[in-house]
């Protein structure tokens, strides 16, 4: 599997329906030193369109590039678990790291995501210091992560 040379080349895809959360996540990741290109998608439908939509549609992923998906669970229409399921069952996308980023710590939900093959599960704590701490750890982790390029 070919890997991205540098984590800077990895595009972070953030699927998050709440504008406030998206802004906080992006800002905190930047504070943790993650300056990668970030694509923000507003719900599960947009996430499915990004990864499975018609080629000429924008925005859509480019094969041959490396992506990392931060996925919220509770989103209108198609939820994050459904998106995770599609991705982990697709031969082109299954090796893309998917990190669930959600307010739910329901053990059934966590269990289900791990079963489907999510690469990590991070709960957004309500208290802000804990929230930034969780994201900071995620940032440190991302910096050393090896992200495969998506098959062409």
């Amino acid at each position: 599997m070919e890997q991205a040379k540098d984590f800077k080349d990895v595009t972070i895809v953030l699927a998050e329906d709440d504008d406030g959360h998206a802004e906080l996540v992006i800002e905190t990741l930047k504070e943790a030193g993650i300056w990668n290109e970030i694509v923000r998608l507003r719900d599960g439908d947009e996430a499915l369109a990004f990864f499975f939509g018609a080629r000429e549609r924008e925005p859509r992923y480019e094969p041959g590039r490396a992506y990392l998906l931060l996925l919220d669970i509770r989103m209108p229409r198609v939820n994050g678990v459904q998106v995770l399921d599609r991705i982990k069952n697709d031969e082109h996308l299954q090796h893309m790291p998917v990190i669930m980023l959600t307010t739910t710590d329901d053990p059934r939900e966590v269990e289900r995501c791990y079963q489907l093959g999510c690469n990590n599960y991070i709960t957004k704590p309500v208290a802000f210091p804990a929230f930034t701490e969780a994201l900071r750890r995620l940032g440190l982790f991302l910096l050393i992560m090896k992200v495969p390029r998506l098959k062409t």
Partner: protein
Amino acid sequence: MNTTHTRFTSARWPIAGAALLVLCITGGACLFYSQQRRLILEDAEKELSAVADLKVHQIEQWRADRLADAGVVMESPLLVEAVARWLAQPDSEPIEYVLTRFRGIAQHKGYTNILLLDTNGAVRLALNSTCVEADHEGLALMSDASAARTPLMTDLHEPPGSAVPHLSVVAPLFRQQGGATVTVAAVMLVIDPSRFLYPLIQSWPMPGASAETLLVRREEGAVLFLNELRHRTGTAMRLAIPLSETNVPAVQAVLGHEGMFRGLDYRGVDVLSATRRIPGSPWFMVSKVDADEALAAWQQRAGLILGATFALLAATLACAGWLWQRTRRRHFQRLYVSESQRTRAEQAREELLRTLRDRNEEMENLLYVSSHDLRSPLVNIHGFSQRLGKAATELSSIIDSAVSLEALRDSALPVVRERIPASLGYITTSAAKMDSLISGLLKLSRLGRMPLTPVELDMNKLIASVIVNLTHQATQAHAAVSAGPLPPCAGDEAQISQVFTNLVDNAIKYGCGDRRLEIRITGRIENALAVYCVEDNGPGIARDHQEGVWGLFARLDPQGPVAGEGLGLTVVKRIVQRHCGRVWLESDQGRGSRFFVALPRQKRPEGIA
């Protein structure tokens, strides 16, 4: 003679030059080779450390959350009161309340059982009555927990008569009695590690064939493996390796080594590992990967380096030979440089993932959904309050350092005009969202408590009045609403009327764009049920979304033009279920939807639940 001598020396210099070059190339290649090997090892070490740190933090967090659950139980005065009263008089009432609380905690926090123990350690109440024996580990902790007035967690262990490891949290319950604090009882929350803890340990965040993390603890001169391993089964709480085998990373971990270690794992395979202690627990974490896999990239690179070195050497020799031959002016010869072949071994790992199980019923998820939905705005309120705080600090330093009014204005304006209002905007929106969620929840909970008075309903009359009440909305949307002859059914008049009002109102709200909206209500009899159908020619619902529409606070397009709190269909489903009926929908996207409501035709003699 002279010419022969010249010819002889000039024939020698290419050989000397070539020998020097060969030396340089070989030396350079060796240096490069070892440097690459070091880089790859460092990479593998970083990855192992990062994974170990991440998991250690997550396990710490998980333990803290479980103790917090127990804390909530300890600090529920109503629960403690109910337990105390019931223990004093076992026939009295509050037992149902205690059981309901226990059931809620077990279901939403994922405990397999909850036991209530009296001060002597005897089990008085078990949520899951198939297992009513308290384990020794838990009992042993009871007095400690009660003395420390804090919940404590047992280690992983196998309970008597079961081969399934578990652990539990012991929460002592206290009550004020005559100025003194008295232990009343203890609650034991039983955790099945295979539901969260094991998957958390076993999942490796990056694709790889051999990497894994292990949880171990020290036990009587050996290290005990606490989870199922990736390369061997039946190991949880079974596999133990004596501490004398110090080349095993797990042994190193329990001996206090923290950091990188290269050794042999439980299979005797050469592995790279990172070891950590998990603070606040007797556990240690080992993250490891087969040296073969970690070094695979290096082996590939080594092959390339070797190939390139050979190619360079061959080229040097060819050049030297060519020069040598040219000086001797004997004959030309071309050397063909052999090509090294790279072989690529690709392992196809196909993982078959289990298909989606049906999601739990929405009412079961009420707590979960509302806690998520309420938490979500809370995250914003916290986060943006923090940002307001930052803005205030920034403003104060701007004021302190401003040299002129102009300068103050220039640096303070963006903060005051943009950042503060933006943060305030998020906070107000989130607060409003919480408010509407809470009123929605109250509405639902009121609905659940409302008494049902089922009567024989003339549905033709009931639907006609529903249509009359919605005339205004229908006219505005240019919708035609009609009803066919409808069979009667049994139900609570106000609530059944609410069901059809919500369905018709939804059809009107979501409209149909350019064509004229037609809504038709029909009915038929199927055995003991009267089945009604509300059909529209509106936008329809995509297959992917059909299941979700009944969910609490589910809205197809929250940013869209249709207002609402996402409660309409939840209420419909709730009411129909209370009438022992059934709801479902059929829809073709772009062509319309059919919502079906099946209700009993006759009142049940024992009354409707």
